[in-house]
């Protein structure tokens, strides 16, 4: 089991600035552990992967259960949405690159320029996220117009379930993004955005998850 | 002189008419519609019900109980047909006497129970086992209650006219009907297929006969004071 590795990590970790390795409050700095919010993000991703794995297996079982599966054309709009989401990942990358110094990973104080640019990129990311969600809803309407509803056929049922679940999770990301922007704006950049790496991890994952779902839906429906 | 007599007579007549108007009118004799419900063709043969699952009921029946969806009698008579006034009758207030429905020997007694809308219905469990009453109402509210052995009767009523199939969820063979009507004039045919609707004031009526399997037939009947008219119904039966 991983205990030994952990111990190694500890001994490595205990080499810290003198005076900090005693029981005083600064002890934690001597531990090269990831940001807790980032750990949280990864654990969350772990759980979400599990959920969608469950949904997927349900889909496969259900499709195998009875030959009543109707295949339908995915709304073109979805591909546009995909592009939007991919771009948003890109812009978030640009944002965190600029805000990194703000995020307290480097000793240098943030340059005013980096900060303002970073904020703009964050805002753009937020906007793109919003567009994606709206786009998804429009895609639903397109499908509904072809009278494919939630209960029409297992294929459409799963389509709505998948897109809805993904959308819900993405809204979580959007909320986090908004919170981050507010926090930064309030303190114009001096607030340490420790949540930003976690947020990026989550956002990129949402991105990947969508690609997976899109492929799955293309193959299955 | 003659004129005086005439006047006098007229006066008397007037007086008489005055008096007549004052005194309560003797009710006009009411009429009756009676008749017989029969079938043509061959009805399906009723099947024996195996109650082995419920010994406490099985032992109450010397001969196996038969299904009752098309119960027939001698002379092609058709049982369990509800004959009622479907038009021309002005329904009075719901009667105060209760419509009683029994669960006995894992059978519904009677198989078909007509009642007037709003009339109180009382359901008894006379068996040593739990029963479950599930009237599959669509117009009226649907409910589904179990009635353990020896528990108090269930009181309920239906406000809208409807033909409601009743089933027991515990004993699938138990099937019956609540027939909720908007009139107080109704009857269910017995084994001889005969019925009679009494106490009908003179007038023009639509008489309907309803059978759970063969649907409804209607007849126009006009009766005067104290008349008795006959209305016969004939349903077409199929073996399957």
């Amino acid at each position, binding site marked *: 089991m991983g205990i030994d590795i952990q111990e190694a990590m500890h001994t490595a970790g205990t080499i810290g600035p003198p005076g900090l390795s005693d029981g005083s409050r600064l002890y934690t700095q001597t531990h090269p552990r990831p940001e807790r919010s980032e750990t949280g993000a990864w654990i969350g991703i772990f759980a979400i992967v599990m959920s969608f794995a469950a949904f997927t297996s349900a889909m496969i079982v259900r499709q195998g259960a009875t030959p009543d599966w109707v295949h339908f054309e995915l709304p073109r709009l979805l591909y546009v949405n995909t592009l939007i989401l991919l771009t948003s990942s890109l812009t978030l990358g640009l944002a965190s690159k600029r805000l990194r110094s703000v995020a307290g990973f480097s000793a240098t104080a943030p340059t005013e320029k980096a900060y303002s640019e970073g904020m703009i990129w964050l805002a753009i990311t937020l906007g793109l996220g919003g567009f994606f969600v709206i786009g998804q809803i429009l895609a639903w309407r397109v499908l509904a117009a072809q009278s494919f509803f939630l209960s029409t056929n297992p294929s459409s049922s799963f389509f709505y379930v998948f897109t809805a679940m993904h959308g819900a999770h993405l809204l979580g990301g959007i909320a986090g993004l908004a919170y981050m922007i507010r926090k930064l704006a309030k303190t114009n950049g001096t607030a340490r955005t420790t949540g930003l790496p976690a947020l990026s991890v989550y956002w990129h994952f949402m991105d990947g998850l969508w690609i997976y779902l899109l492929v799955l839906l293309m193959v299955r429906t | 002189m003659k004129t005086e007599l005439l006047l006098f007579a007229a006066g008397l007549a007037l007086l008489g008419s005055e008096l007549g108007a004052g005194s309560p009118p003797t009710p006009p004799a009411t009429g009756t519609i009676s008749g017989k419900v029969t079938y043509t063709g061959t009805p399906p043969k009723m099947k024996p019900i195996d109650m082995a*699952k419920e010994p406490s009921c099985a032992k109450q029946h010397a001969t196996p109980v038969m299904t009752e969806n098309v119960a027939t009698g001698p002379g092609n008579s058709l049982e369990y047909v509800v004959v009622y006034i479907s038009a021309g009758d002005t329904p009075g207030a719901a009667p105060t006497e209760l419509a009683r429905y029994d669960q006995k020997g894992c059978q519904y007694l009677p198989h078909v129970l007509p009642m007037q809308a709003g009339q109180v219905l009382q359901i008894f469990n006379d068996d040593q086992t739990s029963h479950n009453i599930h009237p599959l109402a669509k117009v009226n509210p649907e409910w589904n209650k179990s009635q353990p052995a020896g528990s108090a009767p269930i009181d309920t009523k239906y406000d809208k006219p409807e033909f409601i*199939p009743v089933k027991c*969820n*515990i004993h699938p063979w138990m099937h019956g009907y609540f027939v909720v009507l908007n009139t107080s004039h109704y009857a269910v045919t017995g084994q001889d297929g005969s019925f009679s609707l009494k106490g009908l004031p003179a007038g023009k009526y639509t008489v309907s006969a309803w059978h759970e399997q063969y649907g409804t037939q209607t007849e126009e009947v006009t009766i005067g004071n104290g008349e008795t008219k006959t209305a016969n119904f004939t349903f077409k039966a199929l073996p399957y």
Partner: protein
Amino acid sequence: MGKVFAVVLTLITLVSVAFFAMHTWWLPPDISTTGKAVDRQLDETLIGTGVLFLAGQLMLGFFAWGASDKDRAEKIKPFPGGATPLVTAAIILVGIEIFTLTFVGSKAWGAIYLTQPDPSSIKIDVQAEQFAFYFRYQGPDGKFGGVHPEKIDDGSGNYFGLDPANDLAARDDIVTASLVVPVNKPVALTLHSKDVGHSFYVRELRVQQDFVPGLDIPLHFTATQIGKYEIVCTQLCGLGHYNMKAYLEVMSEEDYQQWLKTQGGQ
């Protein structure tokens, strides 16, 4: 206190085991060709686990006894040999137990569920519904009529949704509320459900099989004892679950033929 615990635990253990050993409450005699293996499997498991149970509980009581009433001066004693031999022993012993049980058990299971029914076996269609079983025999023509769910009508006794009007094969199908089979003749059932999940359980046959709505599930057995046995539902199916049962009547060949004659078709 430790001694008290040891005594109480020992009593509980012995009483519990006694009732198993004395067969005070026990399975009904098996009447199937496949049940013997199940019973043997049960006995083996009983002995194996009985030993484990006694050993475990008595050891616990014994140690508790030993660990009680120590004065402050007394030193604690380490467990002889430490953890490693104990763990290895456990792994090996339980491992062997598991291996044998699986090896023997899978055969007992296979005999019931992984074999094909004898082609000559009597085919009977079983339908479970809230809350009764109904059984359907092919009748003289040796064919089952088609099933049409929308035609199902308990009121007229058409439990299977047959269509005798248009389906000649359905007319002579025999539908009963009891499962009647000849002794020593293989019987092949097809289980399907009208509404929700149910289960087919006959203790004496040592078989249990769920009905799954939407599936036709095969189950076959051969009854070796004439008599009347209960078929009960073991899958929670609604308010009448407790009362969902039917009878399995195992008859001599002659009685069976006689019974068939008395049963009319649709």
